[in-house]
Structure formats: C-alpha cells, structure tokens
C-alpha cells in the first residue's frame, strides 16, 4: 500500500465553518407541545379505566356490530335441513354469498377454490362419502370427518356461519367444476326442494316460487 500518511493543517481564514444561530422551526415547537398535550389528554381518555375505551373493548363492540350486520335479518339460525332448504337458492347475491365467503376463507385449501377437491373430496359431483342427507353436511363440518382427515369447525365458526357454509356446499352439488377430483363414495338422493326463499339482502321479498 502506498503511503497512508497525510498531513492536515489548520484552516485558512476563508474556510471558516460558521456555526449558525438559525431559529428552531415553529412546527417543531408547536408539534412537540401539541404532542405532549395530546398525550396527556389521550391517556386521560383511554387509560384511566373508563370502560369501553380500550382497544379490546372497541374490538368487542365492532365484532358485535359486525355479527349484527351479518345476521340481524335472519337472527339465530337452527342447524337443520329445513333451514338449509330455505337458503338453498341460486341467487348470486344474498346469504349464499356469505356462505361462499366463509368457504373461500377456510375450505379452499383442501377442497379447491371451486370445490373441485384437492386433499379433500370433490364437492361438485353427485357422490358423497360421509353425507346421506342434507343435514349431514352440518355434522361433517361441525365434527370433522375421516378420522383426522377433515378438521372440526364447531369451535372456529359460529352457528350461523356453519349453517350458511353448509348450505353453500350443498349448492355446489352438480356444479362439476373443471379439474374435479374423481367420484368418491356413493350417489345419494337429491336435496329437498328449496322452500320459500328468504328475501335476498337489500332487496324486497319475492313472491312464492
């Protein structure tokens, strides 16, 4: 390596570094005072123990409101064949879409995006392994199936969600999506006919079919 020694000398007069006396910007002063003031108010409002103001409390309220938003119109659903038959209609809007959304969030990993079957069986054909009648879908989703093959969803979804996703699964029968897995199980009697459908969300009730 060539020489690394160098020499530094003191500055010349024309290279002075001046240390300025610029003013502290007004926005820093205002911002700092405002932050400290707001902090005190914030703490007083949120952290002095008044109920309903913590993040958890606010979440609980939001959850309750969300559940109400979803199910206010239909109340608490019974898990039976009659309820499922009520919701079993092919409308794109309406409660079946809620069931579809639950399906997409939880079921597509094993059953495929269209229910064609991957690890789990094809839900779009006419053959069923564990189902004999429409309410068996509720039991399979609640308790799981095939030993450890399908997990139980009873503790992960609320009762209304179970009914709606079961009805959606029922509605997939016969859709025969592309790339579907082969038939497993046996062909079973067709579902009961849809009963007078519940009015789709945000639309007036239709006349009887």
């Amino acid at each position, binding site marked *: *390596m*060539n020489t*690394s*020694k*160098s*020499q*530094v*000398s*003191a*500055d*010349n*007069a024309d*290279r*002075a*570094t*001046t*240390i*300025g*006396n*610029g*003013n*502290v*910007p007004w926005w*820093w002063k205002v*911002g*700092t005072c405002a*932050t*400290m003031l*707001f*902090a005190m108010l914030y*703490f007083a409002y*949120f*952290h002095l123990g008044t109920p309903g103001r*913590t*993040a958890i409390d606010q*979440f609980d309220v*939001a*959850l309750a409101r*969300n559940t109400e*938003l*979803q199910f206010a119109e239909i109340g608490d659903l019974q898990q039976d064949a009659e309820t499922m038959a009520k919701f079993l209609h092919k409308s794109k809007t309406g409660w079946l*879409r809620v069931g579809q*959304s*639950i399906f*997409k*969030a939880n079921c597509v*990993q*094993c059953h495929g*995006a269209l229910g064609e079957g991957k*690890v789990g069986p094809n839900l779009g054909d006419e053959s069923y392994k564990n189902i004999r009648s429409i309410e068996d879908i509720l039991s399979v989703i609640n*308790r*799981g199936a*095939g*030993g*450890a*093959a399908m*997990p*139980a969803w009873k*503790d*992960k979804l609320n009762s209304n969600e179970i009914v709606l996703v079961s009805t959606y699964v029922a509605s997939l029968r016969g859709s025969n999506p592309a790339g579907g897995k082969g038939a497993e199980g046996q062909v079973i009697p067709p579902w009961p006919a849809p009963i007078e459908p519940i009015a789709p969300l945000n639309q007036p009730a239709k006349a009887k079919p």
Partner: protein
Amino acid sequence: MTIAHSTNDKPIGVDDRPVRWFLLAAAFWAVIAAAGAVVLALLLVLPKLFYELGDSAQHLSFGRLYPAQVQVFLYGLLGNGFFAFVYFAIPRMLHVRLVLAPLAMLHWAAWQVMIVIATVASTKMLTQGRWLGWMEWPLDMALIAIWLGLFVPVVAMTLRHRRSETKLPAPLWFATAIVVAIPILQFVGNLSSGSQPSPGRSVYEGVQDVMMQWWSARGFVSFWITVPAVAILYFLVPRVGTESKIPSTLFSHRITIIHFWSIALLGCWGGNFQWHFTALPEWIDSIAMFTGLLLWLGCLAGAYNLWRSLPRMNRRDRSVSLRLTSASVVCYAIYSLDSALMSLKSAGIVTQFTDWSTANLLLGMLGVSGLAFIAFSLFAIPQLFNVPVDPQRGHWLRWLAVEGAAFQVIALYVAGTVQAYSWYKLDEFGRLEKPEFLNALGWVQPLWITVAFGSAIWFIAMLLWLALIVRALAFNGSVPSSSGQDANIVEANPIVIPSRLVGAPVLSAAIGLEQWTQLTWHAILERSPGAIARRVLIALAAGSALIWLPSMLYRGPSRDVALVTQSPYTDLELLGREIYVREGCVSCHTQASRPLLPEVLRYGEYSRASDYAFDRPTQLGFRRVGPDLAREGGRQTSFWHWKHLENPQSESPQSVMPSFEHLLKQTLEVGENESMASQAQAVAADIVGAGGPVIFGDNLLMNSKGVALIAYLQRLGVLTKAPNPSTNENTAVTASN
C-alpha cells in the same frame, strides 16, 4: 452569529491506514450484501429458483438467507463504514493524531473475522431467532469485546490528546451516542442462558421477550442504521461545498442539540410501531406512539437543519458528494415523516406487517445510510489517496445508487398499500372482501419484480463503488501536505443574545427561561466527550427503563394465566419450534393476530399475552409474506401440512414458500424419549390415515423430522388443555397420553 476562529497550527501527520482498510471492507461487504439482496428479491418472484439443486436448495431459502444478508449489510457495510468515518473524522475535526493505530488495524481484522463467522453460522442455521439479534451469544460477546476492547480505547485515547479547549463538533456527539448505545443494546437485548446449543434459550420469555426484542431491534435500527448516517451528514453537509471556497454553515446549533438529544433519549422507542395492537399492554403501546412522535419530530427538525445547511450552488458546480448528500438528507426527511406516521395507532393497521414497514426500513438502510456512506467515501477518497474521483464514474454511481434505492422503496410502499387493501377490506356484509390470503399476490407480484430489478441496479452500483475504491487504492500517489484541511472550531465565550423580553411586563423567570432556550449552556457539555457520553448513558437508560421495568412485571402474570389455559410445549413440539426458528420461518410468517375485525375474521381469535408465555424467544414476526400463524393449530389437517411442506405450490398454487422436502426426509432423533415417540406416532397416524405416505425418503413417517414441525404448527394458538394437542379434536379422546 458565532464565528469560528482559525489558529496557526503546524500541519500534523495522520495515519489513514485504518480508514482505507475499513472503507475497502465496507465496499466489499456492500457488494456481497447487494448480491444477497438480489437473490432474496428473486426468491420472492421465482420461488423455484434453486429447484434444480435438489436438496442443496435448502441452504438458499429465504428464511435462511435473510438473516445472513442483513447481518452482512449491517456489520459489513454500515459497521465498517462507521469505523472508517470515525477514524477519518476525529483527526481532522479535532486536529489530533490517531493514537494506537496498530490497535485500529487489529480492530479491523477482528471485525472482518467476526462478520465471516457470523455469516457462516447464519447459513448453518445457528441463530437465536431474534430480529437483528440473530447472532448466537458467543458472537454477541465477541462483538462487544471488539467494541469495548479495541474500538473504544483507540477513540478514547485519541480524544484525550486533543486540546482541551477544543469543542466536540456535532458529528462526534452522534458518534459518542453510538459508541455508548451499541454495547448496551447488544448485551441486554441478546441475553441468553446460553449453555444449550442454538436457538439459545432467551432469558426473556413471552410478552417480556416481545418487548425486549423490539426494544433492542429498533435500537439497532436507530444506532446502527440511521444515526451513523446522521453523524456523517452533519460532517459532510458543511464541507461538501468547500471545493468552491464557499463558507460552509451549519444552519442552527440549537436544532442540532435538539436533534441529538431526541435521539439519545428516544432512539430505542423509534420503531415501536411494531407493537400496535399486539398482546402488549395497551398503555405501553400508547407511550410508544407518543415517544415515537416526539423522536421523529426531532429528527425532522434535524433533517430541516441539514437541508438548510446545504450549500446553494449552480447545477454545474455541484459535486457528486454534494448530490448524494442532498439525496440522503431528503431521504432522511421522508423517513422521519413516514416513521412518525407509522407511530400513530390508526396508521399501524395499514403499515404493520405489510410491505410498508419493509419499505420504511429499506428507505433507512439504502436511502439514508447507503447514500450517506457512499457520499462520505467519495468525499474522502481524494484526501486519502490523492486521486480525484472521476466525475463521470461518480455520476454513474450516484444515478445507479439513487435509482436502485428508489425502485425498491417505492415499489414496496405501493405493495404495502395493496396488501393492506386486500387483507383488511370488508364487504357490505361485513365479511372479508378478499378472503384468500394469496389474492394480494396477483397485484404484488409485478411490484416484487420491480424490487428485484431495483436490487440488481443497486448491486451494480455497489460494484462500481468497490471498483472506485480499489482503483484509488492502486493509484500510487503521494499525498500532499495541504490536503484534509478542516476548520478548527475554537469558540471564545459564547455570545449570549439579549432576550427580547427585557423591559416587557413579564416575570424574570420568563426571561430566564427564554435565555435557557438559547441553549448556550450546552457549550459546557460540548467540551467533554465524557460528559456527553455520561448523559447519553443516563438518557438511554431512562428511555429504556420505561420498557424494561414493565416487561418484567408482565412476565409472571402472563405465565400464570397461560398455565391455566394451556399446556407447556411437549418435547416434540419444542423440537418443532426449534426447526421453525432455525429455518427462519419468522422472516415471512407472523404469529400475532390483532384485535381488529378483518384480522380476527381471517386468522382467528386475537393473540393474548398468555399465548406467548412459553416462547423463548417469541417469534412474533414483522412481515407477512405468508399468512399469520397465531391460530394455525387445528386449522388444517396434519396431512395438509405434510403436503404443503413437501411442495407448497401443490396446495397453494401462487405461493412463494420454499419446499421443505429436505426436512421431511431427515430422521427424527427420539432416543429414549417415550412421550416424544408416542406423540410422533399419533401425528404420523393422522397423516397416514388421511392418505399420506407410510414411508417417505428412507424413514417411516413417524421417524421423520417433519412430524415435529407439524406437531408444533398444530399446537400454535390452541387454547385447550386437551391431551395430545397436536392432533385434532376427533382423535384427542383416543390419544394414549
């Protein structure tokens, strides 16, 4: 206006050998880090990049490469660059020879050896599992030993030899703060009861560990990444115009003081936007919000100070150093603004865990720090080697570096916004608009391609930088005696400006207060680096105590709650957790479901403190390339997990997750452990029963290491004391123990 007086000192000789070596090392490691970054960016776009290598591809997975790459960047580029700066600046600013230069060279050698060992250890999966604290305990101690045993003595002894009336200029205040802060962060943040092999058992557990990890991690982000750059900027900004003999001015001494003490007091709180809505006590999160705002306000004022101090010159006259310095100052202002925004809880919903946080970090690493270090080296090269920097090459370097950084940062900000929309939007029914996690990927993919492109440009910039330094080194010129002038800042008595309030009908206390805000009393501190260091220590300790003390309080209670609701990890699950930590799963997956509606709808119940009670260290995570795993237990069957680990793309076609087939082929060491063996058998039975293979590779399924990882995944977030929680409810009642 206080004006510095010059003195008639004879030129002194300085030994720049350490500076040259550190600069060369910085550029070298910068190239390696940049190459690593390109690979990482490509892995997110082409997950099967190394598929042809078969089982060897496991060494090049995102989770394993990420810690190695960040460490090389941190210690290789930023560490070496910082040392180069300190050894360069002290002689010139304080007009004092560097003493103990051989010790500085030993420092250099030890530091490079440490980096090499740390990188190799990282690739061998020897990691503590903490973000920015991956190094195992012996390496942590090595770093502290080098710092305190080699670096600090050289600096301290050199400072001793300065003239006593010389005031410490601003860059050295920041350097002092770094010198004080790093050993504390390194020691306290990484404490392990480390007799076990990796991952070393963290002294902290559960929510306490979450707080300590984020305290030290964000402390590192401040004191490794941004504060060295700030020190360099305060050094460069008054000097980059001096080639044209324009007097250089630091705009405001008072703002510098405010900037400095904001960082010293609150630097460890700077990034605690990672705490929003996690299982931490909420009041600590609120404190973090406000201390964050105060810190970033101070930094914004500092950026303003630096911006006003930049010389105003014609376009043609601006040197490359000046342009890069300006770019770095602008990046610092944006970084401070963005960090202030992220401190707000409401903004945290969007910024946390998305690519927005990554963009913010990259802005700091590349935009603020990278550009500042390059600017410094281009400024220093003529003085160190007596060879001018070729302006053409200099401008190429500037363009490539700025464009490379800009592409990456902007693309990631956009990606973060897109992800936030995809993950958090609810439809009119109150359900998730995009229920599938991977839905965001369609939009994010082209942005990640842009990031890869930007990282390639940055890599070329680093190559050019290294070439410039090597070329300068090879140049065999003698260094003239008049190089490296620097102003000798000697102040007579500080001029006290008479208060405007004199004569007004106010209390004399008000006048006194206004005098105090002139901050002229600060000059006493500036005479003594020791005084600054002591006060920084106190400020740092005070700021940190606000995190340490509450964290200790919450440790016991959350464990008590946890023992009521959950069983501690079984041996098999602990082994699985170890695999999870070693493979670096935390680089892509978080384990924190927040009490926000979209989050709970997507991932399940929000995480509570008791959920982390048995984790040492916790794997909370910081980025969701893949979905959150806080409530993964029981969501999928073990068979699904097996197939997913073997080939993720078969289960999730767009997934960027690497294959863990190598893990499934490895043998599980059970030894005499009966409970481990029986749990492994139970998990294997589930998998085989659902259609899995009885034999995989050369092993029966129950003898595969993958079973341990699956057992751990099935345990995550399970809130029952059911026996054998690794299997589903169905078989829980039939499990043997």
